[in-house]
C-alpha cells in the first residue's frame, strides 16, 4: 500500500473513533499563516511550525469545509487505487453536486475545492502529486538528457537533444520520470520563453554543454520538482537567469525555497543550492545597459521590500543588490542585451558570467 493511501485511511479511522465516542469528528490542519512558518537555516528550507487548527463537523462555521475536505480525501483514495491522475479542475467537477433537499452545492466553484486540496496536503504531509492531483503544466526542457517516463502501464524514452528549438513540454507530474543518461555540466533555468527560444536558436545548450529549462514566468510545480530532482539526483548545479526585477527574484526565490504559503512543500520542491546568474544591478553598469532600464513601479518597490526580509535573502550580497535597486528605482530585462546584438547573451554575457562564477547566492 502506498504511503498516501495509508494516511488517507488513518484520517478516516481517527474520525470514526471520535464519532463512536460521541464527539464531533474533526480534521487537524497545521496553520499556514506567516506566524507558523520558520526558516530551518541548517537545511535551508522553510518549514511549518507546531501550530494547527481543528476543523469540526459540529461547528457550523466549519461544517461545510469539513464535508468538502472529506469529499476530496475519499476521491483521492479512489484515484490512487486506480493509478490515474486528475487536474484541480477534474477534482472540482468530479465532486460538484447538489446536496440532498437543498439548493446548496458541494462546491460552488473551483476556488472552494483548491484550498481544500491544499489543506489536505498539509494535513497529511503529502504533495498533491502524491495524492494523484496534477497542477498546471508549463515550462520546457532542452539538452543532452535522456529520460524515461512511465505512463500507467507503458514507458517512453525521451531524448531532449533531438527536439530542435521546441523542446520537451514538462508535464505537471514528473514523479514517474527516471533520468537515463545526462551529458551536461549544469542546468540553466530561463525565465522567458523568448529567451529560451533565442538560446535554442543559438544552440547554446550544445555549445556550452548544459541543460536549458524555461519556466515561462513563475515556474509550475512540475518544473520546480524537475529542477529539484536534477540537482539532487543528477548533482547538476542550477543557475537561474531571470529579468533583473523583483518579479524575477521572486521566481528565483520560489525555485530555491518555495513560496511562503506553500512552505511545507519546500522539502520536495525547493532547490536551496540554486544560484542567481542575473541580470543583476551591477550588470547594468558592467554591460552598460543604462539606456535599456525601466522605472520601478509601486508594486515592484513593495515586493522588493518584502523580499528583503526573506530569510534566504538575508545575506550581504542580496541586501546590497536589493538596496541598489531601491536606490536607483530601475529594473532591467533579460532581453535588454538585444540592444547590443541578438547573439550577445549567448556569446558574451552567459559564458562570461558562468566562467567567472559571477552569481548571487
Amino acid at each position, binding site marked *: 500500500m502506498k504511503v498516501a493511501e495509508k494516511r488517507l485511511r488513518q484520517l*478516516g479511522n481517527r474520525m470514526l473513533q471520535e*464519532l463512536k465516542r460521541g464527539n464531533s469528528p474533526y480534521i487537524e490542519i497545521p496553520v499556514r499563516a506567516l506566524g507558523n512558518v520558520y526558516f530551518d537555516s541548517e537545511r535551508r528550507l522553510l518549514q511549518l511550525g507546531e501550530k494547527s487548527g481543528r476543523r469540526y463537523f459540529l461547528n457550523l462555521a466549519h461544517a461545510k469545509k469539513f*464535508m468538502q475536505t472529506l469529499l476530496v480525501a475519499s476521491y483521492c483514495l479512489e484515484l490512487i487505487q486506480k493509478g490515474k491522475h486528475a487536474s484541480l479542475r477534474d477534482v472540482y467537477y468530479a465532486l460538484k453536486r447538489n446536496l440532498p433537499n437543498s439548493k446548496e452545492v458541494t462546491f460552488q466553484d473551483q476556488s472552494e475545492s483548491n484550498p481544500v486540496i491544499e*489543506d489536505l496536503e498539509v494535513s497529511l504531509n503529502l504533495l498533491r502529486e502524491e495524492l494523484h492531483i496534477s497542477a498546471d503544466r508549463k515550462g520546457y526542457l532542452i539538452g543532452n538528457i535522456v529520460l524515461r517516463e512511465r505512463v500507467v502501464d507503458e514507458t517512453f524514452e525521451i531524448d531532449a537533444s533531438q527536439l530542435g528549438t521546441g523542446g520537451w513540454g514538462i508535464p505537471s507530474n514528473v514523479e514517474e520520470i527516471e533520468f537515463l543518461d545526462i551529458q551536461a555540466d549544469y542546468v540553466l533555468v530561463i525565465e522567458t520563453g523568448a529567451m529560451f527560444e533565442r538560446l535554442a536558436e543559438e544552440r547554446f545548450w550544445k555549445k556550452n554543454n548544459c541543460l536549458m529549462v524555461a519556466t515561462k514566468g513563475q515556474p509550475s510545480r512540475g518544473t520546480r520538482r524537475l529542477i529539484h530532482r536534477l540537482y539532487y539526483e543528477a548533482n547538476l548545479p542550477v543557475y537561474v537567469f531571470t529579468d533583473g526585477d523583483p518579479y524575477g527574484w521572486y521566481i528565483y526565490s520560489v525555485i530555491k525555497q518555495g*513560496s511562503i*504559503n506553500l512552505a511545507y512543500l519546500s522539502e520536495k520542491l525547493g532547490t536551496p543550492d540554486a544560484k542567481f546568474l542575473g541580470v543583476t544591478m551591477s550588470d547594468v553598469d558592467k554591460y552598460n545597459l543604462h539606456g535599456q532600464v525601466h522605472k520601478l513601479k509601486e508594486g515592484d518597490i513593495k515586493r522588493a521590500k518584502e523580499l528583503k526580509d526573506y530569510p534566504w535573502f538575508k545575506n550581504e550580497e542580496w541586501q546590497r543588490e536589493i538596496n541598489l535597486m531601491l536606490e536607483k528605482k530601475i529594473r532591467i530585462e533579460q532581453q535588454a542585451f538585444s540592444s547590443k546584438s541578438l547573439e550577445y547573451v549567448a556569446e558574451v554575457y552567459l559564458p562570461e558570467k558562468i566562467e567567472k562564477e559571477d552569481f548571487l547566492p
Partner: protein
Amino acid sequence: MALADELFREFRSMSVSEFFRKNAAMLGYTGRIRSLTTIVHEGVTNAIDAGEECGKLPNVYIRIENLGDGGRYRITIEDNASGIPEKYIPEVFGKMLAGSKAHRNMQSRGQQGLGISGAVLFCQTSSGKPVRVISSTGEKGIIAEVMIDVEKNKGKVSKKEEFDPKGWMGTRVEMEAKGVSYNRSKYGAFNYLRLTSLANPHVQIELIEPDGTKVLFERVTEELPKPPKEVKPHPYGITADDLLRLAREKGGERKSLKTILVKELSRFSDKRVRELKEKMALILLSRKLETQIEDLDKYLSEIQDEEEKRRIKKIYSGFLSQAAKILRKEARYLNWEEADLIVNAFSRMKLLAPPTEGLSPIGEENISRTMKAVLNPEFVACVTRPPKTYRGGIPFQVEVGIAYGGQVDEEGIEVFRFANRTPLLFDRGGCAITEAVKSIDWKRYGIDPNKDKVALLVNIVSVHIPYTSTGKQAIADVPEISKEIRLAVMEVARKLMRYVKRKKREMEKEAKMKALLKYVPEVAKAMSRLTGASEEEIETELSELISKKYLSSEDFSEEEREEAIKKEEKVILISNGGGLDEGSRKEAETTRE
C-alpha cells in the same frame, strides 16, 4: 446745511406691517403651496394653543375651498376654545408683534406675535379681503371683519355684529388668499396636519379638502398635556440688558433691587444674596488689582506684607458695602455697569438649574401610541430626555420616537421634525435635527440607513426655540441642543438594535440545525469510503450528534465556539488567499514575451 436737509427730506419711518408686507417671504409666504400651508399653520397653531390654555381637549376644524380665479382659496379654521374677548379681536388679527406669549417665559407654539396677523396681512394684500372672525366667549358671539391698517400696524374692524352663540364657545376664522395652492405633497397643508396630529395625540383634527373629501385625524389620548407654566428667568440666562429691563419694568413701586432679584428670578433666594454681594466685591477687587478673578486667591496668598494685606482687606470691605448699596437701591435706578457687575457675579455662583415646569413634552407613552396608530410599524421605541438648558438658562427638552418596519413605507430614515409639537416642513437641510440624525453612525446600531424602513419623530420643546430665521422652519445648531438630540436618537436606536438582534437570534438557531443536517449524507458516504464502515450507521450517529447539541445542552459554550470560529477563520483566510500559489496568480496578470 441745505444739502443734508434736502437729502433727508425723504426720510420717514415704516411700520412693522409695512416691512413684512414687503418681505412676506420672511414669514414663510413663498411659493403657492407653502403659502397656503403657512396660513393653515398659523391658524391651527393658535387653535391648539387656545384649547390647551383654557384646559379643553382641542377640536380643530379646517376647511379649504378653491374659489377659482387664479388660485383664490378660502381657508376656514375653527377651534373649541374660550373665544376671544371683543376688544382684543382687532389686536389679535390686526396688529403685528402683539400677543400674549412673547414676553412670558413659557413654552408655546407661537412665540412672536407675527403668526395670525401675518396670515391676515398676506390674505389682504393678495386677495384684498378682510379676515372674517366669528368668536364666542360663551355668552355673547361676535362676527367681525378685520383688516390691518398697514401704515399704522393696527387692526381695523370694518363690519361687526353680535349673535347668540347658544352655548357654543370658540373661534372661527375665515381667510381668503390669492395666488396659493393646495395638494397632498410633502409640503402641503395635508401633510402638515398629519404631522401635527402625530405630535399632538390629544388633538382632534378634521379637514375638509377642496374636493369635499373629509379627513379625520383622530384623537389618540384623552389626556390633556399638563399646561406649561410661566417660568421666571434664570440668573444664568440673563444679560445685563435683560436685567436692566426687568428692574425698570418690575421696579415700579420703589422696590429695592434685591427684592426684584429674589422675586423675579428663579433659583435665587434671600439666602444667596450674601454670596452675590461677595462675588460682586471680588470682581471689583480683581479689577482694582488688575488681576483675573481666578488668580485672586493666589495673588493674595503671595502678599507677604501685613500692612498691604490689611489695606486690601479694607478695600474689599469697601467693595462689599458698595455691592450692598447697589442691591439696596431702588431697582428702577439700576444702571448698566451695575447690571453688568451683577450678571458677571451670577455667572460665578453655583445655582440650581432652572425649573422645567414651563415645558410640556408629548411623553414617551403618547409618542408610542400615536406612532403606532399613524405609521403601523413593527416596532416602536420612544424616549423623552430630562430637561436641560442652553445658553446658560433657557430650559429645553428633547424627545424622540423611532418606528421600524411594518407599514413604515419609505426605505431609509425619514425624519419628522417638531418644535413645541409644531411640524417643521421646510428648510430641512439647515436644521440641527437633520444634522444630528445624519451624524449618527447607524451601521453601529445594525441599521442600514439607506435600506431599512425607519421613521424618526424628533420634538424639541422649549420656552424659546432658537430658530434660524423668521420663517421658523429650522432649528439653529446650538451645541447643547444638538448633543441632546444625538443622545436621544442614540438611545432609541439602541433599543431598536436590541429588538432586531433578538429577533435574528431566534431565527438563527433553527437555521443552524437544518444547515448541519444537510451535510450528513455526504460526510457519511465519504467516511464510509475512507474507513470501510457502514454508511448508514455513520449517518445515524452524525444525526444524533447534531440533535444532542441543539436540543439538549450545547457541546461548546458560546465563547468556545466563537474562539473556534476565529481560529478557523484565520486558516480559511490564508488558504483562500493562497489557493493559487502566488506565482500562477502573477502569471495570469502579465505575459511578458
